């Protein structure tokens, strides 16, 4: 029963805050190289689900598996800390508010974790920073500090920081929601590039067009359950559920 088949498996995820149940028996499989978008109204549990995958918000029930290893293994505290720190190295995460380290240069933001956790030399670290920053088009800003960057630039550096750990899976929690509209595209382009490179990604987003253009699959969540799931053409064009139709209609109106 514990054997996994998919690259990422979420099995019967359940999460409660006291009596408030925010995730109700959610299961989700993601194959290697697949890109899944999670959409849904505010408070539906999208972030909670995403943050359960790297155990930032631990589940109260259910399992998360990545590449044949259970992320939220039941282990004694000390062993679990070691295990989860190891697992998190394989799971990159990008936040709505970037969360760059303001006291570190762009270079050090990217190299801090690899230097500390993978014990790479300064020379290797510099090469890594240059590679990753070049990848997101931020190489010229390598010696800047976060405060000197625009929101879009910050988010691209945050993506480079996550990629520098060479993760197997990338999680994006509304990576462009905090950005001015004119800065959204530069971040979307980076994410599209990752898609072309077959990075496995789970993306929480409010941008339906973007989701439709890069994702293999779309999950519509509401009130802690997956209401509808399928390829973007189906979920966006021919939703089978009333709640999905309502959400998409409201969203369209909101966008106008």
């Amino acid at each position, binding site marked *: 029963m514990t054997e996994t088949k998919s690259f990422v498996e979420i099995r019967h995820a359940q999460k409660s805050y006291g009596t408030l149940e925010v995730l109700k028996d959610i299961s989700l499989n993601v194959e290697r190289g697949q890109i899944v978008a999670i959409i849904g109204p505010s408070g539906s549990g999208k972030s909670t689900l995403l943050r359960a995958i790297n155990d930032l918000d631990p589940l109260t029930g259910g399992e998360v598996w990545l590449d044949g290893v259970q992320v939220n293994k039941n282990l004694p505290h000390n062993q679990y800390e070691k295990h989860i720190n*190891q697992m998190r190295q394989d799971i990159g995460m990008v*936040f709505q508010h970037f969360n760059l380290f303001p006291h570190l240069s762009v270079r050090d933001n990217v190299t*801090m*974790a690899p230097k500390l956790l993978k014990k790479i030399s300064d020379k290797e670290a510099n090469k890594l920073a240059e590679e990753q920053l070049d990848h997101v088009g931020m190489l010229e800003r390598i010696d800047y500090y976060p*405060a000197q960057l625009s929101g879009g630039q910050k988010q691209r550096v945050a993506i480079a920081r996550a990629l520098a750990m060479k993760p197997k899976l990338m999680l994006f929690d509304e990576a462009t929601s905090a950005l001015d509209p004119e800065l959204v595209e530069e971040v979307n382009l980076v994410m599209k590039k990752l898609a072309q490179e077959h990075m496995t990604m789970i993306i929480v987003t409010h941008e339906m067009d973007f989701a439709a253009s890069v994702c293999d699959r779309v999950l519509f969540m509401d009130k802690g359950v997956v209401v509808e799931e399928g390829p973007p053409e189906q979920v966006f064009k021919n939703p089978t559920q009333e709640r999905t139709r309502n959400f998409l209609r409201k969203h369209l109106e909101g966008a106008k």
Partner: protein
Amino acid sequence: MGLDFSVIPPFYGTLLLGVLWTIAITAASALLSFFGGILLAVIALYAPAIIRLPVRFIAWLFMGTPLLLQLFLIYFGLVQIGIDLPAFVAGVIGLGFHFAVYNSELIQTAMLAVDKGQMEAARTLGLSRRQALVKVVVPQAVRDVLPPIGNNMIALLKDSALVSVIGVSELTLSAQRAIGQTYRAFEFYAAAAVLYYIINLGMEAVIRWFENRNRLYR
């Protein structure tokens, strides 16, 4: 008997030595209070109760009792239980811990004010909580409270005069020794005051340099 500042030059050497000792004890105590303050703040916020509570009790003792009494206790009192510290060391411990407690209050508040997303971002990359504290939370918190810590360090310099009572030949004691030989209290206390003021200016310059170096990141 009027004022006669010509009594001072023969004691230049004594006073200079006093200045050096004052700088030495201030610098050593400042370092102890800085790193001790960080350690106390981390303990107060993150250590299990079995460590946190006794440490908090000791911190409360350091904060709630006169520094002078603490110095007496460390220098004269500890001897009775077999801990015979040199006066300089006793002075550094007393001053250092006393101000470490004040610094830790500042650093604790600043650590709590560091955005929660910082810890999350660090943990997400695979850092342990300790690594995240050392690399991400503490440096930001300390940076945020450098100005008030600087004020504490100025207060520390002034309070360093108290260690004269346990026999450290710093500036105040040096002045007193000169007065003992010349009976010229005003001249030598005034000279000491001027010298303290000059050290103070130097110290402010160091603090400002430190703050500027850290301002880049904002």
